[in-house]
């Protein structure tokens, strides 16, 4: 068990190092000179050279990488080329926003998917199951930003129930916060929920075919009760895996949805950074997202072990 944990952790650490090199390398080959973008049209070559020096862009790439990576280890993301403000606090601010969005969307997705997927599986030959199945297909086909635009048209522009965009931190005005969070979280959550439903359905279907469930039925448990008692925990293993993977798509979806709803999260920060060639900022945000994905996968691995005792035997 312990060996397995250490092994997993080593993989996590190695992935982080490799990805930091890759992220840095991608930024280095990106066309467009940060100094030139910062100074805009009409800038003289001298001014650009001076700014490159100020940014440290005239140093060898290896030096730049070591500086950046050792900063990261110390938790220092460096200073933005464009705004001349420390990147760490900026990213932390934006991360809170995106975290609210992603977590709420995930909760919405789960609330939708677990009951709907279970019903779809349990009644997969009945009309209600087929109807839900068709509905989830539609959900899978719709991209989150389109769902966002549709929700805006209906609930913000036509009905005027909820704001179409903006962001208020929950500590400032919790009601406004909830109102502004509702549509973007729904547009991400509905789509993710639809995707997740398919996985829950097939996981539950698999479980339904298991002998132990038949045994439970034979003992006299009603179908849903048998599923609840014996089935869902087993169905949870594949679903948790998918959940981990989906967090990645959710983060990417959030980047687009943030733009549609004008939410100052990591996604907006990332896009602005790219268009301003604020390389350190982009590197920082991308690295953070990579870290989030890797850590989530790591946690998912741990969660397996918690859910399914059979897996714990692996490190004997």
């Amino acid at each position: 068990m312990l060996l397995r944990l250490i092994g997993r952790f080593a993989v996590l650490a190695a992935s982080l190092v490799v990805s930091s090199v890759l992220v840095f390398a991608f930024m280095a080959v990106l066309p467009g000179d940060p100094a030139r973008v910062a100074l805009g049209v009409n800038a003289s070559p001298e001014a650009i050279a001076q700014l490159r020096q100020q940014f440290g862009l005239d140093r060898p790439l290896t030096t730049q990488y070591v500086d950046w990576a050792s900063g990261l280890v110390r938790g220092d993301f460096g200073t933005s080329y464009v705004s001349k403000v420390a990147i760490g606090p900026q990213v932390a601010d934006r991360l809170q926003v995106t975290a609210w969005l992603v977590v709420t969307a995930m909760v919405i997705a789960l609330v939708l998917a677990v009951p709907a997927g279970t019903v779809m599986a349990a009644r997969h030959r009945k009309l209600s199951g087929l109807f839900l199945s068709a509905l989830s297909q539609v959900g899978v086909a719709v991209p989150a930003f389109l769902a966002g635009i549709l929700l805006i048209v209906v609930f913000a522009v036509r009905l005027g129930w909820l704001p179409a965009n903006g962001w208020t931190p929950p500590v400032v005005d919790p009601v406004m916060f909830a109102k502004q969070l509702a549509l973007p979280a729904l547009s991400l959550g509905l789509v993710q929920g639809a995707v997740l439903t398919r996985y829950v359905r097939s996981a539950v279907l698999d479980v339904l075919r298991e002998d132990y469930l038949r045994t439970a039925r034979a003992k006299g448990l009603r179908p849903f009760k048998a599923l609840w008692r014996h089935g869902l925990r087993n169905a949870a293993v594949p679903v948790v895996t998918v959940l981990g993977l989906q967090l990645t798509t959710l983060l990417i979806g959030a980047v687009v949805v943030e733009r549609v709803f004008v939410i100052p999260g990591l996604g907006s920060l990332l896009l602005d950074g790219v268009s301003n060639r604020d390389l350190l900022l982009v590197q920082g945000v991308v690295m953070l997202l990579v870290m989030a994905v890797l850590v989530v996968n790591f946690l998912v691995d741990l969660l397996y072990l918690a859910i399914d005792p059979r897996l714990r035997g692996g490190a004997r």
Partner: protein
Amino acid sequence: MSRFFTKAAAAAIVMASALVAAACSAGSGTSPSASPGAGGRALAVGLVAEPASLDFTTTDGAAIPQALLGNVYNGLVKQDDSGKIVPDLAKSWTVSPDRKTYTFTLVDNAKFTNGAPFTAADAVFSINRVKSSWTTSLKAAMDVVQEATEVSPTQLKVVLGAPSNDWLFRMTTRIGAMFSQTGVDKLATDPVGTGPYRLGTWQRGDSITLRRNDDYWGTKPFFDQVTLKYFKDPTALNNALLTGTINIISTVQAPESLGQFTSNAKFQVIEGTTNGEVVLSFNNSKPAFKDKRFRQAIRHAIDHKALLETCFAGRGKLIGSMVPPTDPWFEDLSAATPFDRAKAKSLLQASGSAGASLRLRLPTLPYATSCGQVVKSQLEQIGLKVKIDQLEFPAAWLTTVFKNADYDLSIISHVEPRDLGAVFGNPAYYTRYGTPQLKALLAEADAGDEQTQLAKMKEAARLLSDEAAADWLFLLPSLIVADKNITGIPANAITEQFDLSRLARS
């Protein structure tokens, strides 16, 4: 055991019901439109580009002066809505007969938001600081100043090395902003000026809130608080006005989306002009373009009316040269090179470059992308081959087209004021034009008196048009949509600032 699911489901239900409750309360109670205008003295303006920093002395771009100039900072002089230079912190000024010495009389009751009074010493400091500490390219306009001196706290003398009409004009732009000697330590986050507003809060990625400066020396503005809200997406911007999150859209990026506002009695649509000449730029250093007939062929080949209809919904103005109508030397030259496909073909034959292949390298900006398609199809109808490349804007376009001049044709809007000389007067600029004849005209215009300037600038604009140094597709319109009851909105967007001080609600 199913505890895992029970807990997750319970948490989810709590969360979901909170969301539903929020939605319901929004529906039954106040509509979202009440929030920005609450109290009657607050206003929210939607803008497209958020500044990365608030310091325009070291960071370029239009977003910072748009938010701060005229609102947080004042200059000595400013431009009115028709383009005329009028007093601001300088009540009046005189120019010596040799046109080299400017003497300004300053207002005596202006105060910076850090409490310091504004004096001629601050003006001297601000002018000298452009030369010593600014890093943006615009600082070059201050090079002509030889010396600035304080005659008395309200008298300022500026001596130029050579006569320059352009200098006084540039003083209406950001380089003329007046700073406090004791307030330039934290320009990027904490600007100190004498304007009608001061910085309130800045929520990065979202908005900047300005609060009324109660010590303002001039006429106090109507609104206590103005929020500048930034939108990258034009649809989001439109939705924000439709749902009442904002009261004004400062510039409509997609003119085809105006329909939803013109047909709605709750809104007003204002159309004015800008300084944004949408230029189909020619790389004049390429062999084919060295022949004037080739350049003229391209101008004659383009049906500008049809182009404007297709790519900007017919909004905007045909100008035919590098001068917007708000400059004193404007002449409508749009008929000088009329659409004439036969003539274009014969000019092309005569130039010896018929059937040439051209690379039209477009920045990823909506107007450039849509106009580029029209230009391509019209040039192909006279037998040229046109290949379109999209270059990410700004980074890739700046490097490839602007720095390396690695292009044949490009389309970009040149929005800087009075930029005829900057774009065509310098052979090292990406248009690679800057002929001695044009440079001589520009120099005479800058040094002469007002009449000379007028005559020479007209001549320069006509020369560019006759020589077909580029093609001028159209002038971008200033399209503003606002709540019906907002007054004091400047129709023309010809300065770097968005003047909030005259806005009011009727």
